[in-house]
């Protein structure tokens, strides 16, 4: 679309010239002020590390936060705070791609002179090899994010022989890479912005590199990593800032990340000035104290996330929609918010899409006064539905993680189910295995507690991923449709909404809002609340910025 330029009046020209001159005069001073913050060491702490360092394999928010300044993709989410952080900008590509062939072909022109931390210049060979490697290492999103690339089917069937022939086409001389898709995908740029599409040196071994750092193009590089102890991150000597939005230079010279200890110890370390930030949320027990004693050190940010309780629609008693609706009516969402630390830290919800997310429209069917928002539980309606279902007295087991919040919610739901006449029990299992355990239908999990954090800002990343028929794989540990919900009508509407997003995003968002309502009418899950991120920083940390995708932008902060 071409925007028509309006001729400016002479007076406005003069004002513009004066402003430019003034800014030019201030620029050195501004740069000096920026330089004044350069240097120092940022000290981060976490109860544990999150396994492999390999950006094509790791699928944790803890390490994705680090990959933001260690690696780059062809495109990336803008590394700024606020709503702009959802925007995709050109990163290793010189500009956003040209899209042709009815949305099935993306052509990228690579930036010149970008080097990996080992000093080698990035070329089209690295891009092609990196996309092949996503499949060769069987990356966790290879079959979901990148399965639309031509040749991906063969790569998924025989990863070791993956070539993506016809899918990734490089022109070394022109410095271009063309990606061909089997069908248009309006979310493809989002998927390319994820760390799983990071560009790595072509010679990187096609297996999970584990604790060995892989050279990247980011502003920083990993100097050492011991998952049981610490990680040291230093500046990438080969880095030269090409885009502040895509990969800012960063302020600190070194980032020391320590693993181990407890959340309590981390809070004390930050308050005593021995650490600058903790990855884990401060314990609920300390929140009231921190809220009054260190309010300036706390930063709250809404998350594109959802705490929910999937109900297995294929197992009794939840194979009866009336039971699922009854539980939705019966729960006191204010009480659940209390379990998470109160209204300042969580917002009660009774729909899938989080607030301020594409496609979100306030709606609540399961409340005393159905409307835009939740007001109070409707126990009478719930009891009536349970009576009608004839399932009273049946046994229900709630599977929770062994952390305080998950266990607390499980205990609360057990109490509500008992009130409704069920014989309910809570089964608490280690957080390391709970997520995969509840996905596998062989474990016959009736009700569980889970969370979902958006990979990218698209309604399908919640609705289609969590309740689409394609996400349900009986007998597999990787069946993210935990409820086992598959409604062909809703599924077709979701596929149509994804396609509509390519041509009319606004209409697609409106359709997603309706789908959100339709899914909740079938009630395959109990929406619990939308959480907020609590970042506790030491007093010396400045320039806090929160990105919806990467959370706290560590490299943007300064310590001096």
């Amino acid at each position, binding site marked *: 679309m071409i925007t028509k330029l309006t001729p400016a009046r002479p007076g406005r020209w003069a004002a513009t010239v004066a402003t430019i001159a003034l800014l030019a005069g201030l620029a050195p001073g501004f740069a000096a002020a920026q330089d004044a913050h350069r240097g120092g060491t940022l000290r981060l702490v976490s109860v544990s590390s999150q396994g492999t360092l390999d950006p094509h394999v790791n699928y944790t928010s803890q390490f994705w936060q680090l990959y933001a300044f260690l690696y780059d993709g062809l495109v990336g989410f803008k590394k700024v705070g606020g709503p702009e952080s959802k925007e995709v900008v050109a990163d290793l590509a010189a500009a956003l791609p040209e899209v042709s062939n009815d949305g099935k072909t993306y052509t990228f022109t690579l930036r010149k002179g970008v080097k990996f931390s080992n000093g080698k210049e990035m070329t089209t060979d690295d891009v092609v090899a990196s996309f092949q490697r996503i499949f060769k290492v069987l990356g966790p999103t290879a079959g979901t994010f990148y399965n639309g690339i031509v040749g991906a089917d063969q790569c998924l069937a025989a990863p070791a022989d993956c070539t993506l022939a016809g899918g990734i086409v490089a022109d070394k001389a022109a410095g271009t890479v063309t990606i061909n898709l089997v069908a248009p995908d309006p979310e493809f740029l989002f998927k390319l912005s994820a760390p799983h599409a990071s560009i790595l040196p072509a010679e990187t071994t096609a297996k999970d590199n584990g604790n060995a750092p892989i050279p990247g193009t980011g502003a920083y590089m990993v100097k050492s990593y011991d998952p049981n102890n610490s990680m040291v991150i230093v500046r990438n000597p080969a880095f030269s800032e090409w885009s502040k939005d895509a990969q800012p230079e960063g302020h600190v010279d070194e980032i020391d990340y320590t693993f181990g200890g407890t959340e*309590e110890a981390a809070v004390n370390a930050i308050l005593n000035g021995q650490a600058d930030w903790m990855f884990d949320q401060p*314990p*609920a*027990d*300390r*929140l*009231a*104290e*921190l*809220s*009054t*004693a260190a*309010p300036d050190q*706390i930063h*709250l940010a809404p998350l594109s996330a959802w705490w929910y309780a999937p109900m297995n629609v294929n197992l009794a008693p939840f194979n009866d929609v009336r039971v699922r609706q009854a539980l939705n009516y019966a729960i*006191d969402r*204010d*009480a659940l918010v*209390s*379990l998470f*630390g*109160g*209204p*300042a*830290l969580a917002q009660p919800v009774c729909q899938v899409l989080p607030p301020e997310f594409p496609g979100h429209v306030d709606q609540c069917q399961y409340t005393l006064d159905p409307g835009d928002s939740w007001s109070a539980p409707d126990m009478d309606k719930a009891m009536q539905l349970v009576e009608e279902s004839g399932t009273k007295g049946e046994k229900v*087991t709630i599977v929770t993680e*062994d952390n*305080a919040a998950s*266990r*607390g919610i*499980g*205990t*609360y739901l*057990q*109490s*509500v189910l*008992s*009130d409704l006449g069920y014989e*309910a*029990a*809570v*089964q*608490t*299992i280690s957080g390391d295995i709970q997520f995969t355990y509840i996905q596998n239908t062989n*474990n016959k999990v009736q009700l569980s507690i889970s969370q979902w954090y958006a990979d990218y800002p698209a309604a399908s990343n919640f609705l289609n991923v969590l309740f689409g028929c394609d996400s349900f794989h009986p007998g597999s540990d990787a069946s993210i449709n935990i409820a086992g919900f598959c409604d062909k009508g809703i599924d077709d509407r979701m596929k149509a909404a994804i396609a509509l997003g390519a041509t009319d995003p606004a209409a697609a968002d409106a359709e997603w809002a309706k789908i959100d309502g339709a899914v909740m009418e079938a009630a395959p899950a109990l929406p619990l609340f939308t959480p907020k991120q*609590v970042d506790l920083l030491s007093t010396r940390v400045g320039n806090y910025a929160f990105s919806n995708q990467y959370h706290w932008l560590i490299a943007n902060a300064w310590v001096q």
Partner: protein
Amino acid sequence: MTTDQPETGSMPPADAAGGALPPPAGPWRRALQGLASSRTAVLSGLGLVLIVLATVLAPVYAKHVAQTDPFRSGLSAKIMIDGKRSPVMERSTEGLGLGVTPIGPTWGPKYFLGADTQGRDVAARLLYGGQNSLVIAGAATLLCLVCAAVIGIVAGYAGGRVDTVLSNLIDMIWAFPVYLLAISLSIVMLGKTFEIGPIHISSSSLVVPIIIIGLVYVPYVARPVRGRVIAITNSDFVLAARGLGIRPSRILWRHILPNVATTLIVFAPMLMALNIVTESSLSFLSVGVQAPNASWGTILQDGQALLYSRPVVSMAPGIAIMVTVMLLNLFGDVLRDILDPKSVRGR
């Protein structure tokens, strides 16, 4: 040996004046006399009786004093304090308004020790939790002693291959660290429902921790029992009985079991104390008693999340465990002094 049973049918000894002396007190009577004359035994026994009574009366306390259901979440509950209705879960209103803290001890009938993270009365849960902890520890002790007695007696008396097999089996179980074995068994058993004929054991049943805790300590008792049986089997009165052609079952029942019983009784309070700690540890780690049931271990776990703001939630079960274990150990010490033949004070 002082605790060996005298052979039946022998004539009572005569005193210096030629008159018949009263029959000597048996080991059981001597034990009771010893316990009654020991201030430590009386006080610790009384303490234990009081704890048991308090836990037995848990439903009465919950219904008539605290007027609460300690197994139901009370996140929206309110309580009258100084004529004002206050929420049990107090939301922070100062600063950034973060955090929700359960009410602290009121030292009154309701929420005497305050509330936990679910807004439930801690005092009522402590009594119910004690009931489960004591039932599990007691039943596990009984199970352990019975299993250990059977294995120890059979192995020690039969000898040969039977002894080799059973001793190796005991050693195999012994080779595992107790908590590692208990946690492993718990994880396997908690995910399943067991149905053996008409017997149905659900994963939330108290029978699961009873079996686990009962079994892991069997080698610790079976070994000394086996040793004692071997010693008794080679003693004169057993050899004489064998020589007279008395049936092995009668020898076991009349001569060996009574002599081993003292060993088992000496073990009982110590084992009970150990089982209370083990049960609490497993429940604290979420692999023991499962919600909605409570035990001192689960309350301790609930209190962990409130260690900073409401320490009483974890301190109360901690103190209950400590006092009960201490009383059991004191009682057990006295019992051992009286019944253990090797004990200097027992002579």
